[in-house]
């Protein structure tokens, strides 16, 4: 973990409620895909956690959905600086992926899979991605994943784009060596029900600190109590108690 003052480079709408923010600043404490950052927003007390979507040495990309006061304020920013705690959480462990990993993202859970996909493809893995959204207008990053070289499927709940239904409707017919996922808890649960292999799932919880000090985000696992912010947000399928 480290506190870094980032400079806003761009902040663009991907859909009517999802924004992509590119920040300039030191990223050396980010060590794994699936980690997150905690952003101090003017006028708000607690920081807001957002996953690392992508990063290189001096730039950080975040994708966030406007759901309340904090994300609303972020979406209005056109320039300026942000006080951010970076490199939080454990992130995904790539070593278990096998040769044909499956990545499944739902809505605002899609972003952290992007850097993961990039890294897996760089390692020569054959990556399949399933993205789930509510409707056609909510779809984002389909082409970005395809440009990385992944095979991409999209599901929409209302059938206005791609396969009608949920990510699991696509997942059930695929073969894969391992899975990685992030999205609403309902989706994670549904995936756990039908998954044919081991995998890693990324969870959300309301956070006080985001770095392990307050016990605000605890959950019980088969390996003992864990803090989503420090021992997670990524948990292994085998340890999860639903």
């Amino acid at each position, binding site marked *: 973990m480290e506190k870094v003052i980032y400079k806003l480079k761009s902040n663009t709408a991907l859909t009517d409620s999802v924004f992509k923010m590119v920040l300039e600043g030191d990223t050396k404490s980010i060590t794994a895909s699936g980690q997150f950052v905690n952003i*101090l927003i003017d006028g708000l*007390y*607690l920081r807001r956690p957002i996953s690392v979507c992508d990063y290189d040495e001096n730039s950080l990309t975040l994708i966030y959905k406007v759901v309340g006061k904090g994300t609303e304020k972020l979406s209005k920013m056109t320039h300026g600086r942000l006080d951010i705690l970076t490199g939080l959480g454990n992130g995904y462990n790539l070593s278990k992926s096998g040769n044909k990993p499956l990545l499944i993202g739902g809505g605002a859970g899609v972003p952290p899979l992007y850097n993961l996909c990039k890294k897996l493809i760089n390692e020569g893995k054959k990556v399949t991605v399933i993205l789930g959204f509510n409707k056609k207008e909510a779809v984002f990053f389909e082409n970005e994943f395809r440009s990385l070289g992944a095979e991409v499927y999209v599901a929409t709940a209302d059938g206005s784009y791609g396969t009608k239904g949920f990510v699991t409707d696509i997942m059930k017919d695929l073969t894969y060596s391992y899975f990685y996922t992030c999205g609403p808890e309902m989706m994670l649960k549904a995936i756990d029900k039908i998954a044919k292999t081991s995998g890693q799932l990324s969870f959300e919880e309301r956070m006080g*600190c985001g*770095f392990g000090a*307050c016990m605000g*985000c*605890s959950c019980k696992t088969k390996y003992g109590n864990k803090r989503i912010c420090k021992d997670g947000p990524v948990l292994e399928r085998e340890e999860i108690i639903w």
Partner: protein
Amino acid sequence: MVDTKVVLSGWEIDNPVIPASGTFGYGKEFSELYDINILGSFSFKGTTLEERFGNPTPRICDCASGMINSVGLQNPGAKHVLEKELPEMDKYFKKKVIANVSGFSVEEYAETVEILDASEKIGLFEINISCPNVHNGGMAFGTKPENAAAVTKAVKAVTKKPVYIKLSPNVTDITEIARACEDAGADGLSLINTMLGMRIDLNKKKPVLANKTGGFSGRAIFPIALRFVYQVYEAVKIPVIGMGGVATAEDVIEMMLAGATAVEVGAENLVNPYASKEIIEALPLAMEKYKINSLKDIIGGAHNG
């Protein structure tokens, strides 16, 4: 050179700044960010006799200028703290720490303190009496003078280390409870704990916290905490550790003028992990600005005249 040293019941600390229980874990996460040996000391997470998971999540809720928590005393239990956390802490924190203890019966408080008392690492006990009393229909120990006195006596009987009782602000007259603790032999008092509060999620139309209510703390409660410290200072002769919404060196000075001998910093550590360090670094400058040579001299200064 200004003098930031203060003395808590014979224990001299380098400066009055102490991270508050529940907002600093066992210090490890912060020791990775800065050398926490600059702290006066710190108060570690509330410890109970047995391990506790705490309340269901969500346990945290954001507010204007503060937060509500309903963590519910998650901790690994007194034996684990004695055998694992305290020896581990010794690797990154060389000073003595404050052991924050909670319980659900008078016997449990005493037993927990008895276990932890074996550690040389502990400089002072801070007894949190805000938990519900299982023998008394769940009414918090801290809301009844006779309960507060009973806990104080029981704990004093099992340790020679200074015992500070941490008072709840959720009472009609805090001075009555403060006096009861003093009469029962408390070496000092620590205040305030969080204030009961709640929020409702407008989308779900239900309380945000799974526990419905929780403890409100952070910058917003500073004036209230200051008033409590001011009142308690007048009511008792024993030293007071002041806390509630402290975020700057100026806040520390203000708390001390109200009557605090030392000051704890809570929620601010969670939003700014460097908060305690920044306060300590700013303290000498703030002292010069307000023409203070020694912090010891200003304790309760606002009461004179």
